[in-house]
């Protein structure tokens, strides 16, 4: 106890109570979050009898890997997984490049008309055509039920644009000025000085965008029909609501519980996020702070 500098002064009773309460409350909250997740994981690996008798808690009862095997071997899962990876990687790269470029001029306050152009962007944050006109428009563009519709419409997120813009604004102007004196062009300045300095904010945007694309359910549901364009959220929805992946389930019907297979699908779809999650934390915390405190 007591790494804080304030602990030099003796803690009062009240302070101890508050601290104790803080520990208690947050611990309960953390358990409330952890338990349901662990329950799913243990279901994915528990044996059939244990699940049907309802004895699976937060640890697996018995152990089988068949459910996970059948998911990983299911054609539909693999297609959905592949699609999700593809649109997430491509979508994130495209978004980052476009947003990073667009934000640069917008961050230069003394450049004429930038305020107006920024407003032109920001306006779309608060006013939109809405679900149906957007749908009809994509229909008119002929991009419904193609991969384009999964990647391109998300290309610029104005909120992310603002985060990057705010970050650029914090870069000391002297850097830009001195480069200008050396006769560097704007593009050189941007690529040589701004981009390297902005890596942290780019990482933040990568985190935000990739998670958003990976988890997006509504878009693919609205715009995509073909089985070969299914994404993971669509696949999971089918699994969870029991309109099941018959291929994965029939093969296993006797040995593992159906619930195991659904749970295994959830786990398999979440593992990629969990793998990168610890590395992301630093960046999304930073991003949330830049985005909101400066807006």
């Amino acid at each position, binding site marked *: 106890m007591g790494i804080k500098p304030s602990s030099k002064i003796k803690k009062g009773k009240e302070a101890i109570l508050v601290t104790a309460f803080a520990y208690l409350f947050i611990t309960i909250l953390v358990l409330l979050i952890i338990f349901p997740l662990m329950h799913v994981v243990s279901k994915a690996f528990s044996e059939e009898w244990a699940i049907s008798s309802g004895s699976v808690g937060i640890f697996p009862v018995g152990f089988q890997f068949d459910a996970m095997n059948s998911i990983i071997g299911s054609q539909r899962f693999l297609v959905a997984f592949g699609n999700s990876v*593809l649109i997430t990687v*491509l979508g994130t790269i*495209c978004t980052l*490049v*476009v947003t990073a*470029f667009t934000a640069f001029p917008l961050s230069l306050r003394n450049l004429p008309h930038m305020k107006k152009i920024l407003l032109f962007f920001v306006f779309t944050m608060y006013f939109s055509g809405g679900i149906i006109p957007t749908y009809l428009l994509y*229909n008119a563009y002929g991009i*419904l*039920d*193609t*991969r*384009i519709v999964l*990647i*391109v419409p998300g*290309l610029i997120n104005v909120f992310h644009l603002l985060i990057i813009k705010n970050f650029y604004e914090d870069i000391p102007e002297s850097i830009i000025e001195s480069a200008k004196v050396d006769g560097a*062009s*704007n*593009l*050189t300045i941007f690529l040589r000085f701004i981009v390297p300095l902005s890596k942290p904010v780019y990482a933040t945007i990568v985190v935000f965008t990739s998670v958003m694309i990976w988890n997006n359910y509504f878009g693919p549901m*609205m715009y995509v*029909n*073909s*089985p*070969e*364009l299914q994404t993971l959220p669509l696949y999971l929805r089918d699994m969870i*609501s*029991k*309109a*099941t992946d*018959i*291929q994965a389930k*029939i093969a296993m*019907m*006797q040995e593992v519980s*159906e619930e195991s297979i659904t749970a295994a699908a959830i786990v398999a779809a979440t593992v990629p996020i969990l793998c990168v999650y610890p590395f992301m934390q630093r960046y999304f915390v930073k991003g949330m702070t830049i985005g909101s405190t400066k807006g």
Partner: protein
Amino acid sequence: MKKMKRFVVIILTLCLTVTMLAGCGKKVETTETPKDGAKVDNKESSEETANNEPIVLKALVPNQGGLAWNDPEANPVYGWITEKTGYKVEYDILPADNPFDKLNAIVAAGADYDFIVLNDKSRYADYASQGALMDMKELIEQYAPSIASTISQSMFDVCVVGETYYCIPSASPTGREDSSNVGNGIMIRADILKKMGLTMPTTLEEFTAMLQAFKDTDPTGKGSAATPLSATMADLNNLRIGGLGGAFGVESDWKDVNGELVPYQLQDGFYDFLVYLNELYTKGLLDTEMPTNQIATTLEKFTTDLALCRIDGWWSLPSLVETFKTTNPEAAVEYVQPLEMAGKAGMSASSINQMDFYVVIPKNAKNVEATMDYFAKKLVPETFKEMVIGIEGVDHNVDAEGNFTPILPTFFEHRGNANIYLTGTTEDYGTYWLCRARKNEDQFKAYSQLNFDYGSFIHVNPGSDVPCSIYAQISTNLTNSASFTEEFVVNSVVSGITAESYQDFIAEWKSLGGDKLIEKYNEWYTSR
């Protein structure tokens, strides 16, 4: 120097834009290449390519349940058709639950399917009158005149919307005298019933008591997870048609009351029927998870001893029995007789004029000529016969009077699922159909139980004869009033119904297009 740099920047920016758009475009190209390839092939000449690779057609079909639908391209019939016609069909299947949401979106998006198989009359009429479909009469005259002679004109007449028809109809003339067909009935696990020491219920009272007994005694030992009667939301309507509604006299969608057609929403017993279902629900006799259930959920409950009853068609028997082999070999399934109350009982059948399938070509289809050729080839009488009942002596036998009987189990293996590939039916289909109905003993038993053992309970829905053209005359969106009814029914079953809420519902339903529907149905009915 500076100018150079600026130039480079311009180029770079443009490149960025282009690669950005093209980069994403490319992926789509790769997925669409096979399609494009097919299109090009086709335009050149369909005969030239027929020798080499089969032409690929894209089709959208409804989900009729059962495992066959999991992979229509793996079925022996599929390979046979491909070989016989020279066309390969890629099937996309609509989801089993809420298929129309998806279908609407697909049709509205102008998808370029070469053909779509619809199984709903009002949906067909709706799309036709909105201009989403190609004029089939014209196409037949232009590309495949032979079809006009193999399919009976009376079937086309039913499908007329406005001036012309937009589909190739498929219908199953069944073994009953009037060719009507009862599909759905309440299935019961006879083995559990026996274990409980009860006999098959015949009255509504007995039925309710049986459900209550199942809940109270828990014969399968599943505790609170067990549910006597499992159902989905859509099943509520099937329960009305398939055995429960008859006790209240509302089994038929339309009923002739003193020479006038009355829709079920306005029929006398409808209110009491909903009160009854609500009672079942609140007592926990009707699946408490009904509003969120999917078809697969009820199936799962039924096959794992969690449910005593559920409602489904006789065609689901083969796959059901197959599942029981793995989960519970001792299980026995039977249909409950339509339940009687105060002398009333019945279930509803639709007439032959309620087509099984309406095969349509959407406006954006690319391979029209090839598709029509494919249809025509499948409808050549000999081809059609072999497609649906196979080869004489191998798959079926024929007696002196010309009756066909299947040779089991080869018939089931070779032609068991031929019906899912139907794109139009010839006039001989009636005789083949009887043979097909016997393709599997379990299925035939279930079919005859519903259609013959309980035959005296069958009331044919007089509204099912209505021609499609009347739907086209109702300009209001019928989907609205239909989904409004479904919502009202579900809500009444779950949260209860009052005389007041019923009156409100009727008023709103009428204003949503119900009024017009009644008017048009009766116009047709009296002028018939």
